[in-house]
């Protein structure tokens, strides 16, 4: 199972990492990105989806995505 799929994520934005017992909170954008990552969407597809759902431009969507990917990698929540 991938690290991302092993996370327990609730709709409220609460993330539990079973391998370490750590917990995190995330916002609506984070939940949205995680969901699309779990569906194996590409970076471009995720950026387009963010632009559409959150009504932001391409630069903002890209920044939001890559900042969030940095967070997930830093906390070892994705491979």
């Amino acid at each position: 199972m991938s690290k991302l799929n092993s996370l327990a994520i609730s709709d409220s934005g609460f993330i539990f990492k079973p391998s370490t017992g750590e917990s995190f909170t995330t916002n609506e954008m984070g939940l949205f990105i995680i969901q699309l990552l779990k569906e194996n969407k590409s970076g471009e597809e995720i950026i387009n989806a963010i632009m559409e759902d959150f009504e932001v431009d391409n630069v903002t969507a890209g920044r939001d995505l890559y900042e969030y990917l940095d967070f997930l990698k830093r906390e070892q929540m994705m491979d």
Partner: protein
Amino acid sequence: MEKKKLTIAVTGLNNIDSPGPGVPVIRGIKKSGLDVHIVGLAYENLEPGIYMPGLVDKTYLMPFPSAGSEAFLERLEYIHEKEQLDIIIPNFDSELYLFIKYSDKLLKMGIHTFLPSIEQFEERHKDNLPEFAIKYNITVPESKALMNSNELSNLPKPLSYPYYIKGKFYEAFKVSNYNQALYYFNKLSAKWGFPVIVQQAIHGTEVNVIALGDGDGNTVAAVAMRKQYITDKGKAWGGITIKDERLLEITHHIIKETKWRGGMELEMIKTDDGEYYLIEINPRIPAWVYLAVGAGQNIPEMLCRLAMGEKVNPVADYDSGKMFIRYSWDLIGDIADFEKIIIFGEL
């Protein structure tokens, strides 16, 4: 086994800020559905478990292990005559030696235990941990057993501050300079005797495993936990079950190689680089055992069944994300109960 009422004696009723495992062990047994009569064995007359409503059916005071084997056996024979014990679950490190040493004698009396052998008990001692690590290919922090405080000023490399200074049986203090080390050396040697162990502090997250070995190398049960709230005595006041595959692998490896018999707790540090250092093996069920019960592995029940000679199938699964949070609670007791414990040594 369900058909016979089992009389089970349990020690470690000191449910205090550094709690013994007796109370959660009894809770686990009672939750199992086994038909039981619980006998509490207490060393102090104010151990809370004696007075907790609905916990023990009867309590007897025991002589301290330091009183010697004669007093120990004499008292157990008296209690057995009264209660017809089927099983004893000792929960203190300091009493285990006597229970292991006399386990055959107890069995002849009809009292079952499920304990490690003397060899297993001895080789995992804090002062033997470096040899244990080499023998079983486990990573441990640098450590040294000291018999004299003079050795503190001449510790072998690479031991350096900060390090832990540990009592033979219990207690550990992190020290950052010689004066602190000397203070705790004297304190711990006076309380627990020699040796006093110096162990390099490892930076990381403390993770623990409770496990049960069947004596043939099989891990019957194992649950991993991360401490979430640690008291000034280093005890977990809150914890959460985790699914750490590497940690469980190490547990299975140790039990397989040592053929561990009985309950145990592995205390480990996981570093930020993902390395695991074994800092201690406790040769008994730890005080957070009820978390394992809540997560799906009733280790006290399984231990009772093994003690009675039943075959117990290993359980690997448990829920991650189960938490425990300790709390303190003021019981109101009656002086008459206290009087019975003081005067008659039983309640």
